[in-house]
C-alpha cells in the first residue's frame, strides 16, 4: 500500500473555495484541490487502489486456470449439499407473555459516566437485540445515541471477562470472596485503616447508600472516585459561584402549565457541545431542534432560535451554529470575560481585542433585546476553567434566565469528602489515592468498574502505583503484596487496570444485571436485566453487599434483592402498595416524580474572580495548543472494543478505526514550512513542556481554530480486545490521555512538535460514495442549475460541472425565507427549473394511488450529524463490520451515510479582503439512505430481476435472486448500494450472532444490499393493521346479523356500536401508521427523519364523517422547503429533504437576505 496520503495543495483548495464564494459545496479538501484520488473515487465505482490486493506477478494464466477449476469443482460440491435440517426446541414451561416470534420490550437504563439514559430494549426469545430510547425518560425522550445503540453489541462481546482471575490463573468467585473478606477483616486494618474503594462517578442511590453504610462500618476506610469524563470544571465552577455543588439543568424548551412551549431564543455557547457531550444532550438536542423547525403549511412556526458558538475545536453544536467563532482555548475564556463585562457582571473588565468587538456587540445587543428577556442562555462547556463557569452563572443571572432557560438542582453525583471534609472532585480524589498508595498508606484496594489505569491523566501514575502495591518487587511475577481487585468488563489481558491488580472479577453488563441510576436531572431509574449474566458477572452493588456482610456470615444476595430492598424503604408508598409501585416503575423505566426540583441558590457574595486569561501562546515559537475531547465514536475508550463504533465514520473527519491529531488548514501550512511533507497521516511527536510525549498522525480539518490541535481520547490502548488493538496486536491510534494533566484536563498549551517522518495511513470515508455529475446523465440543461458561464463556454472542462452544481444541499436564511411566499418556494427549488417541469420517462409508470405508499422526509435543518441513525441501522439490519482495510477500499456496508458538506461562510468581499475561506466553513449534514426511487435506475439494469419495484413504492432488493453483477450499484446516482465482497459474518464469534435481528436476513458473499425502509417493520405493522381490521369487521358482521334477527327496539343501539367500530378501525389504523418508525427515525435525537405513508389515510371522525388525514410525513412533504435530490434525473425519489435555514444576526451578516 502507498505510503501516506497525497500532499494536498492547500493553496489550490483555497483559491478554488474562494472562486466558489459560499455557493459551492465540498466534502473534503481533496475535492477542492482536485487530487487524483478524488477524481478516481468519483469516476470509478470501486477505485483501482482495491486492485492492489491481487499481486500482479502471481496472477498468471496457470493460476487463473487452477482457480477456475477449483471454483467449478466447488460449485458442483455446493450444489449437492443437503438441505439443512432444522430443529424446534419448545419451552418446558412457557413463560407468561413470551410468544416466540414476537419481540418483547423492556424498559431499563444505561449508565454512561455515572449518568442514566433510559432505554427500551427489544428482546427476541430472550436475547436483547436492539436498544431504543425510552420516550418516558427525560435523558432520552425516545432517542438513542450511538453509545446506547452499540451497548447491545457490547453485551455479546466474546472478549468480555468470563472468569474470576488471579494473576492470569482462573480462580473462583468463592475463593475471591473469602480472600476479600479475610483481608478486609484482618487485624492489619483496624476500623478499615488502609482500606480504599475506587468507583466511577456514583449516582446510583443504592450504591451511594451502600457506600455510606460501608464508611459507617469502617470509619477509617476511604472512598475515592474517578471518571475520565467527570465534569470537574462544571462542579468547581458551581462551588465558586454558589459556595456549594449545584447541578445545572438547561431548559432549551420549557412547557407552561397549559403545554405551551417556551424556547430559548438566543443561545451563546462558550466551548460547550450541548448537543453531544452533556449527560442531558439527547433532551437538549430534541428541544434545540424543535425551536428551529420552520413550517408554514400544516403547522405554523416561522421563527428560529439563534445559536452563537465560540469554541476551541469543531463540535456538533458549532456545526449547527448561526455564527461560529473558532479560537484558541484561552481566547474563549477571554471572550467570556469580555461578554460578561458587557453584560454588567461585577468584577469583570471590558478590555477586548478589537477583532471580537463586532461579534460581542452583536451578541450583547441580541441578548439584551426586550423580547428575548429571560429567553436567552449562556452555555459554558466543561472544558472551560471553573472561573468561566462561575461567570456563566453570573451572566445567566444578569440576563434573568434562571428558572426559565435553566434551573439549578441539587447535584446528582455523590462526592466523597476530601481530608478537609469538602466534596472531592474526580481528579483530586484519584490524586489523593495514588499519593497514599505511593506512601504505603493503602493496603486493600477494590476498584469498582471503569478502567482508571488507562484513563488516568498523565500526572497521576495510577498504573505504576498499582503494580507496586499489588506485587512485591514491583513485577507481576513476584509475590503478592497487598490486596488489589478490579471489577471490570474485560479480563486482565484486555484491561490495563485488571492487568495490574491481583484479582480481576468479571463485571456484569447493564443488560444482565439489577441496579439503579439517576439521570442528569435526578430522574431515577431501576436497571432491570433482560438476560442472565452470560459470564457470571457481578455488579458493584453486589460486591458492596458482600463487603457489608458481617465477617462471620456468607451471604449471596442477588442484585434483585439488594435493589428491591433498598427501594422498599425509599418508595414513597405504603408497604402494601410496594409491589404495584415496583411493577409500575419497572414498566415505565423511571421512578415517578424523582426528577430533582429547582433549588434557589444565589451567587455568593463578592464579585466572581475575573477569569484567569490563559495566555495564548503565540504562533511565533511554533508551539501549539492541544484540545482534548472524548472520541466521537468510542468515547473515553470504554467502547473501543466495539466494531460498530470503530467503523462509524466520526463526524467532521469521517475517520474510522483510528484517531488523529486534527489541524486547521492554516496550521498545516505553518507546519509545512518546517516539515514539507506535512499531509494527512504524517506522524508528529507532540511534547508538552513537562516532557510528556505522544506520536500522532495529523489530519487537516477545515473549521478548526488555527494553532490548535484537537485530539480524541479512547485510542492507543496498551491492551484490549481484537477491535481495540491492531490486527498485529499493536496499539490502535495514540493515547491522548498521555498528554492529559489533571489541573487542566481538556487543554494543553505550549506543545512543541517534531516530525518523525513516518506516515500512518488514516482511513476516511469522506469522499466515498460521492454523488457526482461526471457520469454524464443527460444533456447539460438537464443537469440542474449549472452556472451558465460554465455550460455555454465549450472551453470549460467537464469537471467544472462538479458537485457544486447539483444543489444537493439547499439553504437560505430565515429572513429570506420569510420575505415572501415566492421566496419560500425558491429556497427548495433554488433555480432548479427542471424539477418544476413535468418529468417524462420512457418506462410505463406504476399506479401509486392505492394502499400505503411509503415515503421519508429528512430535515437537514434538524440533522446535527451525530451518527445515531447510522448505528441504529447497523443494529436493526444486521449490517456487517468489515474492518479498516476494507473500508479503505470503499467497502463499508452502512446503508445510511451522513454526508458532510462544507461551504465557505465568507462573502466575496471578505475573501477578497484576504480572509481565509477554509477557516470557518459552514457545515451541512445530509443523511443519505436509499431514496426508493419511483423510477429506479437500479431496477432497469439488473439482469436477474433481483431488484424490483413493489406496489407500495419500495425498491425491493431480493438477496436470494442476486448474483452479484453490481450493475445496480453502478447505475445508482445516489450511491447507496453496498456489495458483500466477502461473507463478512464468517469467522465472527458465535456470541455476536445472538445480537442479530431475526426479522432480517443475514446476507452472504456476492449479494448486493441496501436500505429497505426497514421493511420488516413495515410488514409487521401492515399485518397488525390487517389483522385488527378483519377481526373488528367480524364483530360488525356479527352485529349486523344480530340486527337482522333482533326486534326493532334494540336496533339503534346496535347501529351505534357498528358505527363506533367502523370509526375504531380507521382511527386505529391511522395511529398504527403514525407509530410506525424506521430504525433511523426512532434513534434520531432531533426527529429529523419522518417516515410513513405519503397518501392521505381515510379516517372516520367523531361525527361519523369520512375525512382524509395526512400522516406526519405527508404533511412535511407539502412544506415549501421539501425538495428531492437529483430530481433532474427523473428518478422521483420517495425520500426527500427539507432545505436548511440559517438565522444569522443581520448585524453580523448584512448581506444575509440574498
Amino acid at each position, binding site marked *: 500500500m502507498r505510503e501516506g496520503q497525497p500532499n494536498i495543495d492547500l493553496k489550490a483548495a483555497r483559491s478554488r473555495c474562494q472562486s466558489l464564494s459560499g455557493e459551492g459545496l465540498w466534502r473534503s479538501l481533496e475535492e477542492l484541490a482536485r487530487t487524483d484520488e478524488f477524481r478516481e473515487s468519483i469516476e470509478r465505482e470501486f477505485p483501482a487502489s482495491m486492485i492492489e490486493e491481487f499481486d500482479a506477478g502471481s496472477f498468471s494464466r496457470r493460476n487463473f486456470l487452477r482457480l477456475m477449476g477449483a471454483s467449478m469443482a466447488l460449485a458442483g460440491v455446493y450444489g449437492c449439499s443437503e438441505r439443512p435440517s432444522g430443529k424446534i426446541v419448545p419451552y*418446558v414451561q412457557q413463560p407468561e407473555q413470551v*410468544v416466540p416470534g414476537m419481540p418483547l420490550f423492556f424498559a431499563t437504563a444505561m449508565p454512561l459516566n455515572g449518568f442514566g439514559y433510559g432505554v427500551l430494549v427489544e428482546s427476541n426469545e430472550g436475547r436483547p437485540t436492539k436498544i431504543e430510547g425510552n420516550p418516558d425518560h427525560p435523558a432520552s425522550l425516545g432517542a438513542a445515541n450511538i453509545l446506547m445503540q452499540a451497548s447491545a453489541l457490547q453485551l455479546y462481546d466474546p472478549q468480555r471477562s468470563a472468569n474470576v482471575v488471579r494473576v492470569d490463573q482462573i480462580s473462583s468467585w468463592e475463593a475471591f470472596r473469602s480472600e476479600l473478606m479475610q483481608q478486609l477483616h484482618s487485624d492489619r486494618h483496624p476500623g478499615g485503616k488502609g482500606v480504599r474503594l475506587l468507583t466511577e462517578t456514583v449516582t446510583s442511590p443504592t450504591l451511594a447508600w451502600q457506600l455510606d453504610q460501608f464508611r459507617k462500618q469502617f470509619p477509617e476506610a476511604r472512598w475515592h472516585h474517578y471518571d475520565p469524563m467527570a465534569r470537574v470544571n462544571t462542579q468547581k465552577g458551581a462551588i465558586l459561584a454558589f459556595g456549594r455543588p449545584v447541578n445545572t439543568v438547561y431548559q432549551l424548551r420549557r412547557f407552561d402549565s397549559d403545554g405551551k412551549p417556551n424556547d430559548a431564543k438566543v443561545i451563546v455557547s462558550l466551548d460547550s457541545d450541548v448537543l453531544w457531550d452533556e449527560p442531558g444532550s439527547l433532551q437538549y438536542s430534541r428541544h434545540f431542534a424543535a425551536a428551529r423547525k420552520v413550517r408554514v403549511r400544516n403547522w405554523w412556526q416561522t421563527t428560529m432560535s439563534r445559536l452563537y458558538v465560540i469554541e476551541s475545536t469543531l463540535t456538533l453544536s458549532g456545526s449547527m451554529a448561526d455564527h461560529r467563532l473558532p479560537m484558541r482555548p484561552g481566547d474563549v475564556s477571554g471572550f467570556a470575560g469580555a461578554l460578561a463585562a458587557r453584560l454588567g457582571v461585577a468584577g469583570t473588565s471590558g478590555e477586548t481585542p478589537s477583532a471580537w468587538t463586532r461579534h460581542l456587540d452583536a451578541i450583547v445587543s441580541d441578548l439584551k433585546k426586550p423580547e428575548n428577556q429571560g429567553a436567552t442562555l449562556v452555555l459554558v462547556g466543561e472544558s472551560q476553567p471553573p472561573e468561566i463557569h462561575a461567570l456563566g452563572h453570573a451572566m445567566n443571572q444578569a440576563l434573568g434566565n434562571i428558572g426559565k432557560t435553566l434551573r439549578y438542582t441539587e447535584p446528582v453525583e455523590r462526592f466523597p469528602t476530601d481530608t478537609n471534609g469538602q466534596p472531592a472532585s474526580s481528579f483530586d480524589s484519584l490524586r489523593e489515592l495514588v499519593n497514599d498508595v505511593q506512601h504505603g498508606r493503602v493496603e486493600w484496594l477494590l476498584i469498582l468498574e471503569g478502567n482508571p489505569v488507562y484513563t488516568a491523566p498523565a500526572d497521576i501514575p495510577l498504573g505504576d502505583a498499582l503494580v507496586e502495591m499489588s506485587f512485591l518487587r514491583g513485577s507481576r511475577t513476584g509475590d503478592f503484596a497487598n490486596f488489589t481487585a478490579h471489577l471490570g468488563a474485560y479480563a486482565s489481558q484486555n484491561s490495563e487496570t485488571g492487568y495490574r491488580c491481583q484479582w480481576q472479577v468479571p463485571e456484569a453488563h447493564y443488560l444482565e444485571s439489577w441496579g439503579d441510576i439517576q439521570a442528569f436531572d435526578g430522574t431515577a431509574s431501576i436497571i432491570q436485566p433482560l438476560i442472565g449474566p452470560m459470564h457470571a458477572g457481578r455488579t458493584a452493588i453486589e460486591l458492596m453487599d458482600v463487603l457489608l456482610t458481617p465477617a462471620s456470615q456468607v451471604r449471596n444476595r442477588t442484585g434483585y434483592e439488594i435493589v428491591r430492598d433498598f427501594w422498599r424503604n425509599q418508595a414513597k408508598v405504603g408497604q402494601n402498595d410496594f409491589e404495584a409501585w415496583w411493577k409500575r416503575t419497572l414498566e415505565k423505566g423511571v421512578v415517578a416524580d424523582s426528577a430533582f426540583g429547582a433549588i434557589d441558590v444565589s451567587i455568593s457574595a463578592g464579585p466572581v474572580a475575573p477569569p484567569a486569561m490563559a495566555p495564548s501562546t503565540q504562533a511565533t515559537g511554533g508551539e501549539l495548543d492541544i484540545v482534548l475531547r472524548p472520541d466521537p465514536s468510542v468515547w473515553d475508550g470504554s467502547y473501543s472494543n466495539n466494531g460498530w463504533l470503530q467503523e462509524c465514520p466520526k463526524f467532521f473527519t469521517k475517520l474510522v478505526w483510528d484517531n488523529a491529531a486534527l489541524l486547521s488548514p492554516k496550521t498545516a501550512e505553518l507546519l509545512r514550512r518546517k516539515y514539507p511533507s506535512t499531509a494527512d497521516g504524517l506522524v508528529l511527536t507532540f511534547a508538552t513542556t513537562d516532557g510528556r510525549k505522544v506520536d500522532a498522525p495529523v489530519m487537516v480539518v477545515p473549521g478548526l481554530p488555527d494553532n490548535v490541535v484537537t485530539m480524541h481520547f479512547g485510542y492507543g490502548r496498551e491492551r484490549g480486545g481484537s477491535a481495540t488493538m491492531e490486527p498485529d496486536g499493536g496499539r490502535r491510534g495514540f493515547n491522548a490521555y498521555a498528554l492529559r494533566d489533571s489541573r487542566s484536563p481538556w487543554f494543553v498549551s505550549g506543545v512543541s512538535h517534531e516530525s518523525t517522518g513516518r506516515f500512518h495511513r488514516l482511513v476516511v470515508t469522506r469522499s466515498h460514495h460521492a454523488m457526482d455529475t461526471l457520469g454524464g446523465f443527460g444533456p447539460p440543461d438537464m443537469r440542474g442549475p449549472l452556472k451558465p458561464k460554465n455550460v455555454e463556454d465549450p472551453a470549460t472542462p467537464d469537471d467544472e460541472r462538479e458537485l457544486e452544481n447539483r444543489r444537493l444541499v439547499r439553504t437560505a436564511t430565515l429572513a429570506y425565507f420569510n420575505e415572501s411566499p415566492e421566496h419560500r418556494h425558491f429556497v427548495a427549488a433554488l433555480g432548479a427549473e427542471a424539477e418544476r417541469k413535468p418529468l417524462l420517462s420512457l418506462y410505463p409508470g406504476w399506479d401509486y394511488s392505492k394502499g400505503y405508499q411509503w415515503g421519508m422526509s429528512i430535515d437537514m435543518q434538524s440533522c446535527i450529524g451525530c451518527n445515531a441513525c447510522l448505528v441504529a441501522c447497523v443494529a436493526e439490519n444486521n449490517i456487517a463490520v468489515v474492518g479498516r482495510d476494507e473500508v479503505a477500499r470503499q467497502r463499508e456496508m452502512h446503508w445510511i451515510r451522513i454526508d458532510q458538506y462544507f461551504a465557505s461562510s465568507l462573502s466575496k468581499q471578505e475573501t477578497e479582503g484576504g480572509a481565509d475561506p477554509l477557516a470557518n466553513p459552514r457545515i451541512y449534514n445530509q443523511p443519505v439512505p436509499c431514496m426508493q426511487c419511483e423510477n429506479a435506475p437500479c431496477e432497469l439494469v439488473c439482469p436477474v430481476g433481483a431488484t424490483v419495484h*413493489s406496489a407500495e413504492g419500495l425498491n425491493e432488493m431480493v438477496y436470494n435472486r442476486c448474483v452479484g453483477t453490481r450493475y445496480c450499484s453502478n447505475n445508482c446516482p445516489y450511491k447507496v448500494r453496498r456489495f458483500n465482497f466477502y461473507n463478512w459474518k464468517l469467522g465472527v464469534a458465535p456470541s455476536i450472532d445472538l445480537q442479530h435481528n431475526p426479522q432480517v436476513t443475514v446476507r452472504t458473499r456476492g449479494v448486493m444490499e441496501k436500505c429497505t425502509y426497514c421493511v420488516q417493520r413495515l410488514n409487521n405493522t401492515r399485518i397488525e393493521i390487517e*389483522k385488527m381490521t378483519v377481526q373488528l369487521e367480524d364483530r360488525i358482521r356479527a352485529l349486523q346479523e344480530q340486527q337482522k334477527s333482533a326486534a326493532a327496539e334494540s336496533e339503534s343501539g346496535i347501529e351505534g356500536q357498528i358505527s363506533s367500530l367502523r370509526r375504531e378501525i380507521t382511527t386505529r389504523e391511522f395511529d398504527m401508521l403514525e407509530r410506525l418508525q424506521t430504525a433511523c427515525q426512532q434513534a434520531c435525537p432531533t426527529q429529523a427523519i419522518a417516515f410513513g405513508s405519503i397518501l392521505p389515510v381515510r379516517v372516520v371522525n367523531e361525527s361519523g364523517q369520512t375525512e382524509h388525514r395526512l400522516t406526519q410525513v405527508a404533511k412535511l412533504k407539502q412544506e415549501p422547503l421539501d425538495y428531492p435530490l437529483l430530481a433532474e434525473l427523473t428518478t422521483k425519489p420517495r425520500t426527500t429533504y427539507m432545505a436548511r435555514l440559517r438565522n444569522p444576526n443581520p448585524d453580523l451578516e448584512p448581506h444575509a437576505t440574498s
Partner: protein
Amino acid sequence: MAQLFHPAANTLAKATVFAAALLTAGIGLIYWFIETSPYVTLAGEVRNQPIPFSHAHHVGGLGIDCRYCHVQVEESNFAGMPPTKTCMSCHSVIWTNADMLEPVRQSWRSGQPIVWQRVHNLPGYVYFNHGIHVNKGIGCVTCHGNVDEMPLMYQRGSLQMAWCLDCHRQPERFIRPRDQVFNLHYDPRQDPQHLGETQRTLGPKLVAEYHILPRRQLEDCFTCHR
C-alpha cells in the same frame, strides 16, 4: 482429393442436431423432475421424532383443536410448539406409564426441552407469517394437508416458491370463511352459512370481504423476502 466424410455423415449430422436439442430438453426435464420431486423437497417424508406423536390420534381421533397446542398461531409469525407442560396437562393423568411418553416425562422432570425435528423448514430468507394467513381465512389444511389423517407428521406441499405463488396469485381458490380456518374438512358446498355456494363463487366474495391484497402486491418480493 478423397472424400473426408462418408455419406452417412449427413444423416449423422442431422441426427446430432436433433439429438442435441433433445438432450438439452431432456436434461432440463430431468432437472425439473428432480428439483420438484420429494427427493429434493422432502414432501411426504416422515422425520424421526423423539416421540412418535400422532396428529391422527389427537386431532382426528380425539378432536383436539389445532390451537390447543399451537397457541399463538393467530398472533405470531410462528405457530408455536407446545411446551412440555401442555403435553403433561393430559399425560400426567392418562397414559402415565406409557413407554412411548418417557421422553415427555423425562423433559418434565429434568427441565430439558424436547428437541423435535422440524418438518416444515423454510429457507432463512423467507419470512412466513402464520398470523396473517390464519386471520385472512387460509385454512391450516391448505398448506399442511389433512394432518388428522397423518399418524406421523410429514410435509404435504413442496414448500417451493411456485407452490406459495399458486395461492398468492389466486387466493380465491383457497380462501375460506374465517370461522372455518381450523376445520380440516371444510367444503363450502356443505356449509349451511353459505348455501348454494361453491369455492368458485364464494372465493372471490371472501377475497373482497377480507381485503386480500391485490395479486400485484401479494406477488411483491418483499411480501415474503426481506
